[in-house]
């Protein structure tokens, strides 16, 4: 992977913003461990955001710290034992003081306990919120995957592997073509991130004579998590190709920028 391209993609800025998925966060984290220049870049982005956000602070926030600290030490011993004077030594005085003392201690204890419980409830509520978010995310991810599996298992699906070409032999893609509903599902996971101002364009090809028909551009390539795209294809395609084109796409494919191509095996 080209590290400069990776840095220039803007993913690190979104990482600091907290706008990436859990999986992407882990990927960035691994990149940071692997490449010092990625780590360095993240630190710089973060430092600029720390300065910028701090500039919007309306007053000195250091002044709030003492009260936060004291809230965290709620359990500090606050009850003081009141000494009983020996001179008034009637048992009624003693028992009166003792009763008052016990009641006092019990009261302080109860108040403390109540505060602790309130604090605990808050902690549990926060944890609940976090868990709920995770469950929701997991559910929607699962639904998406189930949906995909159902599509790929359909018996009308034809699989067409697209091979990498000269420009990038490592690149690959796969087309799953449902001839019944005239849709293709393009798995473009194996394509590199397109450079700025460029976009991948998908073509349906007839072989003799070679006639390309555009199926459209992958405008949201960078932001699509699973990199699987559903594209309508009413054509009687004999092959599929993917080229890199200027943003907005081209009328005809730029053959020097042909990334992958694959022929439909047994057209039935």
């Amino acid at each position: 992977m080209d590290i400069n391209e990776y840095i220039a993609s803007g993913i690190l800025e979104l990482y600091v913003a907290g706008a990436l998925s859990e999986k992407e966060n882990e990927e960035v984290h691994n990149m940071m461990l692997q490449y010092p220049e990625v780590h360095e870049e993240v630190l710089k982005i973060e430092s600029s955001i720390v300065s910028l956000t701090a500039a919007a602070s309306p007053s000195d926030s250091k002044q709030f710290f003492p009260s936060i600290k004291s809230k965290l030490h709620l359990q500090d011993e606050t009850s003081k034992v009141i000494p009983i004077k020996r001179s008034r030594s009637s048992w009624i005085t003693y028992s009166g003081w003792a009763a008052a003392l016990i009641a006092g201690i019990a009261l302080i204890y109860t108040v403390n306990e109540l505060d602790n419980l309130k604090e605990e409830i808050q902690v549990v509520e926060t944890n609940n919120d976090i868990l709920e978010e995770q469950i929701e995310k997991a559910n929607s991810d699962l639904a998406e995957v189930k949906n995909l599996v159902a599509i790929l298992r359909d018996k009308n699906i034809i699989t067409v592997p697209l091979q990498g070409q000269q420009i990038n032999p490592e690149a690959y893609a796969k087309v799953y073509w449902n001839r019944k509903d005239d849709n293709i599902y393009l798995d473009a996971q194996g394509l590199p991130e397109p450079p700025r101002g460029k976009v991948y364009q998908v073509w349906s090809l007839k072989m003799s004579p070679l006639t390309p028909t555009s199926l459209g551009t992958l405008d949201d390539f960078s932001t699509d998590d699973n990199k699987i795209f559903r594209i309508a294809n009413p054509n009687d395609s004999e092959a599929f190709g993917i080229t890199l084109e200027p943003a907005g796409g081209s009328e005809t494919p730029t053959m020097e920028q042909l990334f992958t191509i694959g022929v439909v095996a047994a057209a039935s």
Partner: protein
Amino acid sequence: MELNALVSKFQQKDGKAFESLYDMYSESMHGVIYNIVRDHDIAQEVMQDVFLKAWHNADSYSSKKGRFFTWLLNIARNAAIDKTRSKDFKNARKNLDSEFFVDILETEENYSRATDGIGIKSFVNKLAAKCTEIIDLLYFKGFTQKEASKTLKIPIGTIKTRNRNCINELRQMLGV
């Protein structure tokens, strides 16, 4: 001390480490919170909530999930937004989409103690409106790319590159 070491000490409930982290990030959180709630007292209340929450949930942070700053930022934004939805928040003026952080820099007089040296205010005024908008949504409000794309009515693919360019501009101004 190195950030990682500081964070793990904090996770072991070390008060000193907590205070160091507070010193590093509290101004930023205060800025983000105030930008959302637009009220000094409420901002202070939310600040307390946020750092208490951070303390109690310190275990839930892991560097695999993102930067510590980002983790804190998330807690702060969520707490502030929750506050604006609560019953005791009765200020009709609050509209998250229409107020950008820039007007705090323009109207507040006392924001600038620590940051004045950098003169960030004059820099930010030089940022294009399209930059302050996107920075506000992504960093101050915690919008996703999708939400930002909807609000700003620009394609989702543009968000990432535009934001990168804007942050680059900011970095040049700050010399970072």
